[in-house]
């Protein structure tokens, strides 16, 4: 792991003072730049309206008002909003895991006719900016072709488009490609159906990548804004980001910030727990080679 980088280890040893000074500076600056605003957010939401308008601003809340957080929870109906977001995220994970894994398995191991063309058409969608498709996608969701269903305010309006994720298919297929074909053939010879092979040979080996895909699905739903804003217009179906935005206009600043803090807690916790998986997924996600 400790392979040679820009500066050699001997150089580092010679310039030990410089190294430690630089490290101290970087650690301080990074903490201030990346953690500082979060500290400001959490504590700012504890201040009173008066204290927040004070110059110079106070570093610690003089009279911490937990009431702001309670107000955010009650006025914005955050419990409901968080539940909705969690429900959409969980469904997205299930749909992605089932349908994208099956598709990647077919493309990697079963390789039916036109498989390459299908994969190509899927990957081509990576080139299309989301904003370009937002209007025709919306029009499609209000009236699905052929079946003429309206998916507005239905969780399927979030779940199904999440399946159309070429990056996931690519990620999964790459992982499956690394599993030797002989293993699959051996299972087939032993009379295992393709489904059985997927369930008892491929999936157990693919656990790490399935974890990465699930985490990405959860954070994608949690962070998404415009799409849920459009397809979940009813106040009872909103996601947490959209809900806070909808209330921001008529709510005191500190309460909005308190709500933003609460909305951010789940993704931050997920990140702190799964940071290794997230980082490895991000860096091995096809961008390396």
């Amino acid at each position, binding site marked *: 792991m400790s392979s040679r980088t820009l500066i050699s280890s001997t150089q580092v040893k010679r310039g030990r003072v410089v190294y430690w000074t630089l490290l101290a500076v*970087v650690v301080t600056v990074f903490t201030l730049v990346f953690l500082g605003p979060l500290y400001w957010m959490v504590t700012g939401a504890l201040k009173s309206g008066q204290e927040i308008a004070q110059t110079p601003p106070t570093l610690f809340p003089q009279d911490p008002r937990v009431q702001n957080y309670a107000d955010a929870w009650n006025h914005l109906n955050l419990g409901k909003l968080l539940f909705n977001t969690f429900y959409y995220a969980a469904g997205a994970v299930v749909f992605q895991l089932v349908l994208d894994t099956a598709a990647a398995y077919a493309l990697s191991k079963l390789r039916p006719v036109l498989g390459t063309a299908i994969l190509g058409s899927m990957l081509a969608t990576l080139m299309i*900016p989301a904003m370009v498709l937002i*209007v025709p996608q919306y029009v499609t969701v209000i009236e699905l072709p052929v079946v003429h269903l309206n998916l507005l305010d239905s969780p399927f309006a979030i779940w199904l488009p999440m399946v159309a994720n070429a990056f996931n298919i690519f990620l999964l297929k790459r992982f499956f490609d690394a599993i030797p074909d002989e293993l699959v053939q051996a299972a087939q010879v032993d009379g295992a159906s393709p489904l059985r092979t997927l369930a008892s040979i491929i999936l157990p080996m693919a656990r790490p990548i399935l974890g990465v895909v699930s985490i990405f699905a959860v954070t994608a739903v949690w962070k998404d804004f415009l799409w849920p804003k459009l397809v979940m217009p009813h106040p009872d179906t909103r996601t947490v*980001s959209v809900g806070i935005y909808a209330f921001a206009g008529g709510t005191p600043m500190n309460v909005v910030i308190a709500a933003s803090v609460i909305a951010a807690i789940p993704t931050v916790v997920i990140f702190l727990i799964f940071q290794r998986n997230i980082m490895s997924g991000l860096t091995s996600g096809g961008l390396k080679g």
Partner: protein
Amino acid sequence: MSVLTAAARVHEEVTVHPAGSRRRRRILDDLTGHAFLIGAVLCFALFMWYPMIRGVVMSFQRTRRGETTWVGWDNYTRIVADPSFWTAWQNTFVFTVLALVLGYALPFFVAILLNEFRHATGYLRILVYLPVMLPPASALFLFKYYAYDPSEAGLFNAILTAVHLPTSEWMQSPRMTIPAMVIASTWMNMGSAVLIYLASLQNIPGELYEAAELDGAGVWRRIVHVTIPQTRLILALLAMMQIVATMQLFIEPLILANGAGTQDSAVSVAYLIYQHGFFQNDLNGAAALGVIMLLVLAVFSAYYVRLTTRKDDA
């Protein structure tokens, strides 16, 4: 061993069967394969492939009171005539360039720096990536209310006052709107670029640095002659991805500037799509603007690919 024999047995099985049953077998296998694919393919068809075509078709139609008619280029002329059209493109372009200068070069140097440290690397990585995990709406409210508070109680203004620099009105000043959006956007997004760079930096063979050092190359020349050429592919790819992402600038103007901003200083192409489609009841005009955006990005990508491949030859 057992794997090998199994593979041999499969081979045997296939050769033994007569042609007709082999074809039937192949068709059955194909059907099974497509059965596994069907769910994802349907989702792609409904929410990706069909909307792509539908978007182009819509841009030449007009739907009024449930009646759809072909209107030729009307939507395009109407959208271009929107008073905010050119401002939106200009803002988007300025934002993209500034975000590229800040959000593209900065992560690269941060990654190079982090790669040199032998301590606290885990902590630093977590720090850089933490903002990426925040819901953008949360992070932007933080910037809007606390950092960009135009009074002296705002975080940025308090810092500026502390170091005796003039304060700014941030989002209320049309001149500062785009830089303020670039700062917020870079803070939120740079983490993923840093991590991707870090991974590619770790793939650079140490011998190259060794050799460069023996040739007397200093740190800066090692970066220019080893690090950058070795990571060129990732650099090129990320530049492309970053440009496509920043061209879609939307949530920053929506939250930080309440949409268009002071004197249209924040209005972006993506925001204009949103406004036409969902406020002015002009989905067709919005679709036309989407097609224009796609074409601009396509022309740009083609040019970009030519540029990077030509460098390859040299």
